[in-house]
C-alpha cells in the first residue's frame, strides 16, 4: 500500500464518511456512528445536510463514484 491511495478523489472520501458513519459502523461497532445531535448540519460551512445526503444515497442507488 505504500504510496498508494485507496480513495483518490473528494467524492470517494465524502462517500466513505457518510456510508461508514451510517452503515459500516454498525457491523464494526454494533451501533450507528451518528448520535443524531445535528451539530454537523448546523455548523457545516458548505451546507451539507447529512439526512438529505443519506436519503440521496438510499434512493439514487449506486455507490460507485
Amino acid at each position: 500500500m505504500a504510496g498508494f491511495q485507496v480513495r483518490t478523489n473528494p467524492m470517494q472520501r465524502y462517500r466513505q464518511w457518510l456510508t461508514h458513519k451510517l452503515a459500516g459502523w454498525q457491523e464494526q461497532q454494533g451501533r450507528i456512528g451518528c448520535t443524531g445531535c445535528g451539530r454537523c448540519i448546523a455548523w457545516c460551512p458548505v451546507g451539507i445536510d447529512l439526512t438529505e445526503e443519506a436519503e440521496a444515497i438510499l434512493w439514487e442507488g449506486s455507490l460507485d463514484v
Partner: protein
Amino acid sequence: MSDLFLPRVAVIDQRTQESSNIFTLRMQFEDSDAQETFSFSPGQFNMVTLFGVGEIAISIVNDPLDSHFFDHTIRIVGRVSEGLSKLKLGDHVGIRGPFGRGWPMQEAQGRDVLLVTGGLGCAPLVSVIRYLMNRRDQFGHINILQGVKHANDLIWREQYEKWIQEKDVKVLLAADVATQGWQGQQGMVTELIDQLSLRIGRIIALLCGPELMMMAAIANLRSLGLPDNQIWFSMERNMQCGMGQCGHCQIGPKLVCRDGPVFCYSELADFLGSKGF
C-alpha cells in the same frame, strides 16, 4: 491497555538479499519468554517498527513450527522499508503482533490446494506452502502459480525448485517480461490456471497479489465452477493499529487488519474492485 499496543524488541539474526530491492530479516524477540510464547498462523502479520521512523504491516513467512525465530520479507517502497533494509545483524526493531485472521488451514485439510500469487504476494503464501510441505499427507494435490512483472523479480527460485520435486506438487511460473533463460511462461499468472487439470470439486484456492490479478483469477476460477466459499484471498490496506481500532484499513464494513487480511470471496464479493473502497 492491552500490551498489543506496545512494540516488543526483536533482534536481527540474519539478513538475506532476495533481489535488488527485496530482503528478508530473520529475527527473534530479545526477551526469550516473548519468543517462546509467540505463536501465529500462516497469513497473519506483524507491525514492524523501525524506531524513530515508523511502523509497517509485514506478513510472517514462516511455518508456525519455526518457534525460535521469525522472518519478514520486505520490498523497499517507502521510508520505513528503506530504513529496515539498512539494518545490520544485532540491530533492534519493534514488533507488535501477530495480528489478523490467517489462511483457512482447517478448511483446506484433505483438499487440493491451488495457490495463485503475483509479485511479492508470494510472501504471505510462502508461509502456507511451508505449512503444506511440512504436513504433506494432510493435503491433496498442490498447484503453485507464481507471476512476476519481470523475470528478474522472481525470488525464492531454489525453494520453488525444491517444492516441485515433491509428489503431486506442480509449480508454474509466469513473467510479463521474460528474459533469456526464463524457465516459465511469458504472460499473466492467471493464464496459467487454464493449463492445469484441476479437480474442481476438491479444490480450495488461495490467492495473494495485486487486486486486479486476484480479480482476474477469481473470475477465471468461478467460470470453471469453483464455488465462492472455496476462494480465499489476502487483502492489503493501510494498517496502523493492527487490531480494528483506528479504521484506516476498512473496506466497507470489514476491517482488514482484524477481520482479514485473509477473506473468503463470499465475504467481500460486493466490495472487491469497487472504486474508492
